[in-house]
């Protein structure tokens, strides 16, 4: 391939496109969509301010508690408000379908509530307009529209014969046009890059965020590259431009609308999840097998009590050097948390299995690949959410056990009631227990779990190049 011929063909395609008014219309519309999506992204992300505010408000009332019995504090509890990842302005992912706040208290794993979708009208099921969505869904259509005739129209009117007899090779024509089309798609893509970088620059973020952004931007670039090549491939492989257009639109519908919904439906069908009643029921069942830590006459806890009494060589818990009910709850919390965490992990694994088919289909559907990768890197996928749930639960456990420890240490041995101002712990203790902070997963772990999507994008680039070379050898000008 000669570089100058390649550039010549690319430039000619580019100028041809710019001679028509449609391109300005498309660019204008894309910019409007971009503006709206960026605005939405930022204002969704603004909710973080509310959440930080509420987190602080919740913390203030936690710290404002007077001297109290620690078990009251364990039930006073606190909240974990899920903060959106800085990059969530770019791709909303499952963000709207995941809970945003959870009440953390002793003995009880509350669900994360108040997902945006739970108080949205069913319009939310039509999809949300984010920058990522425009790039994944709309931009390919624009590329198809600009490029469907790129080769086939020249063949239909005989210009291709002139091109070839003028000395251009098939390879140069195909790659030249692909380059022109890819260039055009980059022109549409660039404003998105600028917008995202500018929005992120307004606040200072860690290197992790920038690395994520870099990978996101690179994968979208590859996605557009694949889409551009695919357009040229369909164009060269079609008899008429109408055929090329219909084929491309069909492919779009299949990849973007039909496959994702169907595969997710099949996944859910194959791997049913328990209802909340079953889930809670199963945990309760297992916990009861051990015993009820609130019940002073429970056989399992009686056994523990007797062993403790024996070790300390005393007859009754009142003679123990520490508060026994606190100790009993400490043990109970440990047992029930272990059981819950195990069940919750099983549930998550079932979700993962449900999503597995969709993830594997990324190998044949680059849209799913880039979507999965983009969600994961923007911190808006299931795994990021799971990490929030995990951290919130870990914090809840710490909190409950810290309160139990305070009870064991500071409350007299024979006290069983938590009411009133008699059996209390100094309020300074509340302040010294740190507030909940949420750590996003690192980019390494995210990339690790999205390896398949990453491979899909790279694989498709290679496959597309291979198909281009195939047509460069086998295409006919007639």
């Amino acid at each position: 391939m000669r570089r100058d011929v390649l550039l010549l063909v690319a430039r000619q395609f580019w100028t041809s496109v710019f001679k028509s008014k449609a391109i300005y219309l498309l660019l204008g519309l894309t910019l409007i969509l971009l503006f709206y999506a960026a605005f939405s992204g930022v204002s969704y992300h603004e909710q973080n301010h509310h959440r930080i505010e509420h987190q602080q408000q919740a913390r203030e009332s936690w710290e404002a508690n007077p001297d109290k019995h620690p078990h009251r504090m364990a039930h006073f509890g606190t909240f974990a408000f899920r903060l959106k990842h800085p990059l969530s302005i770019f791709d909303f992912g499952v963000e709207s379908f995941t809970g945003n706040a959870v009440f953390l208290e002793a003995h009880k794993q509350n669900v994360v509530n108040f997902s945006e979708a739970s108080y949205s009208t069913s319009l939310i099921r039509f999809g949300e307009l984010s920058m990522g969505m425009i790039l994944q869904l709309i931009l390919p259509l624009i590329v198809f529209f600009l490029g469907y005739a790129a080769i086939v129209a020249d063949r239909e009117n005989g210009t291709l014969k002139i091109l070839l007899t003028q000395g251009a090779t098939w390879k140069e024509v195909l790659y030249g046009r692909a380059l022109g089309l890819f260039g055009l798609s980059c022109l549409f893509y660039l404003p998105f890059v600028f917008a995202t970088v500018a929005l992120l620059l307004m606040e200072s973020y860690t290197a992790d965020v920038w690395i994520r952004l870099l990978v996101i931007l690179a994968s979208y670039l590859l996605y557009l590259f694949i889409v551009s090549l695919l357009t040229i491939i369909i164009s060269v492989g079609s008899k008429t431009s109408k055929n090329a257009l219909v084929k491309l639109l069909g492919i779009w519908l299949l990849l973007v609308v039909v496959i994702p919904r169907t595969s997710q439906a099949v996944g859910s069908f194959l791997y049913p999840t328990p209802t909340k009643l079953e889930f809670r029921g199963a945990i309760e069942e297992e916990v009861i097998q051990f015993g009820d830590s609130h019940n002073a006459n429970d056989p399992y806890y009686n056994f523990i009590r007797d062993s403790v009494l024996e070790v300390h060589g005393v007859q009754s818990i009142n003679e123990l050097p520490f508060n026994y009910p606190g100790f009993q709850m400490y043990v109970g919390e440990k047992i029930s948390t272990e059981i819950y965490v195990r069940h919750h992990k099983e549930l998550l694994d079932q979700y993962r299995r449900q999503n597995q088919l969709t993830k594997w289909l990324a190998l044949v559907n680059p849209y799913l690949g880039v979507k999965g990768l983009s969600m994961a890197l923007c911190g808006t996928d299931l795994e990021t959410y799971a990490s929030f749930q995990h951290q919130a639960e870990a914090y809840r456990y710490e909190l409950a056990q810290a309160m139990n420890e305070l009870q064991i240490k500071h409350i007299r041995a024979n006290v069983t009631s938590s009411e009133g101002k008699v059996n209390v712990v100094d309020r300074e203790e509340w302040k010294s227990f740190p507030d909940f902070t949420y750590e996003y997963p690192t980019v390494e772990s995210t990339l690790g779990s999205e390896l398949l999507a990453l491979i899909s994008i790279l694989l498709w680039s290679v496959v597309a190049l291979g198909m281009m070379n195939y047509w460069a050898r086998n295409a006919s000008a007639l």
Partner: protein
Amino acid sequence: MLEAVNLSKKYGQKDAVVDLNLKVEKGEVFCLLGQNGAGKTTTINLFLGLLDPTSGKALVGGLDVVENKVSTNQILAYIPEVVQLYGNLSGLENLEFFSKLAGQKIASDELSKLLLEAGLQEEHHKSKLSSYSKGMRQKVGIAIALSKQAQVIFMDEPTSGLDPKATDEFTNICKSLAKNGKSIFMATHDIFNAVNVGDRVGIMNEGRLIYSSHTENIDASEMQELYLKTI
């Protein structure tokens, strides 16, 4: 300049060109007459290297097209029945693009001269090709061939749909091209024009060249009679 040696092409079982033998010399205009589907366009495509022959050889400038695609390509040019090119570019821009494609670096005023030489008046050079008539488009096609300094020019039905004045203009351009040493291979239905512009005329039927003669010996009406009789 141009030679077919036992050139044959089959599409599956169907014969498109059968045992074609012909020669076109430098500065000569050869017109190939024949009905639709007679094999004229296939013959051109074989010479252009867009199709590979089933057997036999197509030679351009003494070189086998199949084995020397790059070198034979350099000396030939092609003008289709309707020169479409890029409607939203001007004639000049189209010429610039296609000449660059052929590796020619020609200044803009030189390109204009080529268009003039092909018979396109200067006032049209910068207007969009989509506004051109068929004859004007053909002139751009010729200018493209000229820019490439092609030795052999293939034309497919160049006069179909041209009005008499444009046809006459076209005939004169062809003649002057031949005088400057270009070989022209033209597939056409137009018997009158073939006799008028061609140095030699061949008649093709069902892939076979069944008649070939110099035009000095024959006039248009005799040719028509012969044509109707042979097919």
